[in-house]
């Protein structure tokens, strides 16, 4: 019943969080969305496999990896804004910046401890069902390792410069943004935007202490 919490689902979340974030650098202008995901996922996987310190859960190393290889391939503004929901428009630019920062720390911190579990997994990208000129595409993949394959899907959008950016992902059917929406709305309704920022910051501090 709780397979969505299983250890292997956890890999997928980690892979997803990291791959969502992708590899830095050259992308062909007309690269199809599935090729984009495949390239970024493989780069991230290789980087994790190559660096032993990531396996020990070195948060600084992982943050660097995320900043260099993942963030350039993600529309994190859109991710945060849609997770925050209607409350986003009440937030000042400064609050919006803080929300993005804290949300990012939360995601990075959460997954970093478990990155050591990445071993022999590979990503298989499923055939794309999209028209050539679609601006938003669903890319479906599977993480294959030991045991059952794990579903890992991405929503990607075409940015103004023609590159693809990930703006949502799901592991075994659980969409990341949707899963934060209710909690974020709850916080904003009771404590306002600053309350949400404070809750995120508190959670991050608690996680940092626990990780020491």
């Amino acid at each position, binding site marked *: 019943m709780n397979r969505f919490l299983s250890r292997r689902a956890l890999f997928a979340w980690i892979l997803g969080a990291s791959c969502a974030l992708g590899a830095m650098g050259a992308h062909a202008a007309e690269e199809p969305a599935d090729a984009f995901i495949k390239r970024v996922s493989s780069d991230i996987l290789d980087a994790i496999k190559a660096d032993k310190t990531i396996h020990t859960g070195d948060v600084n190393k992982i943050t660097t990896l995320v900043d260099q290889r993942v963030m350039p391939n993600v529309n994190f*503004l859109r991710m945060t804004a849609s997770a925050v929901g209607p409350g986003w428009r009440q937030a000042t630019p400064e609050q919006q910046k803080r929300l993005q920062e804290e949300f990012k720390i939360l995601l990075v911190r959460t997954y970093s401890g478990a990155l050591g579990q990445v071993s022999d997994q590979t990503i298989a990208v499923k055939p794309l069902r999209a028209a050539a000129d679609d601006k938003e595409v669903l890319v479906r993949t599977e993480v294959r390792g030991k045991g059952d394959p794990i579903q890992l899907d991405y929503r990607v959008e075409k940015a103004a410069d023609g590159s693809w950016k990930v703006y949502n992902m799901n592991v075994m*059917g*659980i969409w990341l943004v949707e899963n934060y929406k209710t909690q974020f709305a709850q916080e904003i309704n009771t404590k306002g935007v600053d309350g949400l920022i404070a809750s995120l910051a508190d959670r991050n501090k608690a996680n940092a202490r626990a990780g020491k």
Partner: protein
Amino acid sequence: MTQALQRWPVYVALVVVAAMSTGCATGPNANPKDPLEPMNRSVSRFNDSLDENVLKPVATTYKDSTPELLQKGVRNVFNNLSDIWSTVNNGLQLKGRDTAESLMRSVVNTVFGIYGIFDVATEIGLERHPEDFGQTLGAWGVPNGPYVVLPFFGPSTVRDTAGMPVDTSADYVRNLDHIPTRNSAMALRVVEKRADLLGASGLLSEAAIDKYSFTRDAYLQYRRNQIYDGNPPDEDELVDPSAEPAVPSSK
């Protein structure tokens, strides 16, 4: 079989009583998917403390002190038993190919995998298609009903709870005649499941601001995805507030 079916009214009564006792406790902020939230939250607290004090320590010991290979064998045996029930449920959902594959898996693993200790079927490319009776009901259009957190069992919905007695009655382990064997096997299965979740449960409390609603939303999304076999139709389109000009208000 009959024993399990006799427990049915207990489940129903539990849910009904819970619904009535908390029906008026829900405020205007109630989530429409979770009208029983106040009760669910207290059951979650009960489950969490039971887990923290009993189940998690036992599962941690099991994971740390049992050889990896043995753990894998144990997991495979229980998976093999559940594949047999998945075959029936795939059949009830008229999924021809998945039924055939699940059946083949059980046969291959029972015979060549020595009662399922080795998962030969996966090696030869037969994938698992886990299905339970709650999913079968869902596939035939029975709605979720409200989210329910069951004592001991954890996240569920009214529909899935209604499906549980059927799953139970077909459960090979529960129907073992030798009672000590049955009880040991059931306990081992619980410990094995929990051990499998050790890494993820830590993540859950780190990733969530509100662990309860995070778990609930994940469970509901996960079940919906299972019922549609990984291909659910889009729900309402996600709004992207950042796409519109952000108008900071001094609210």
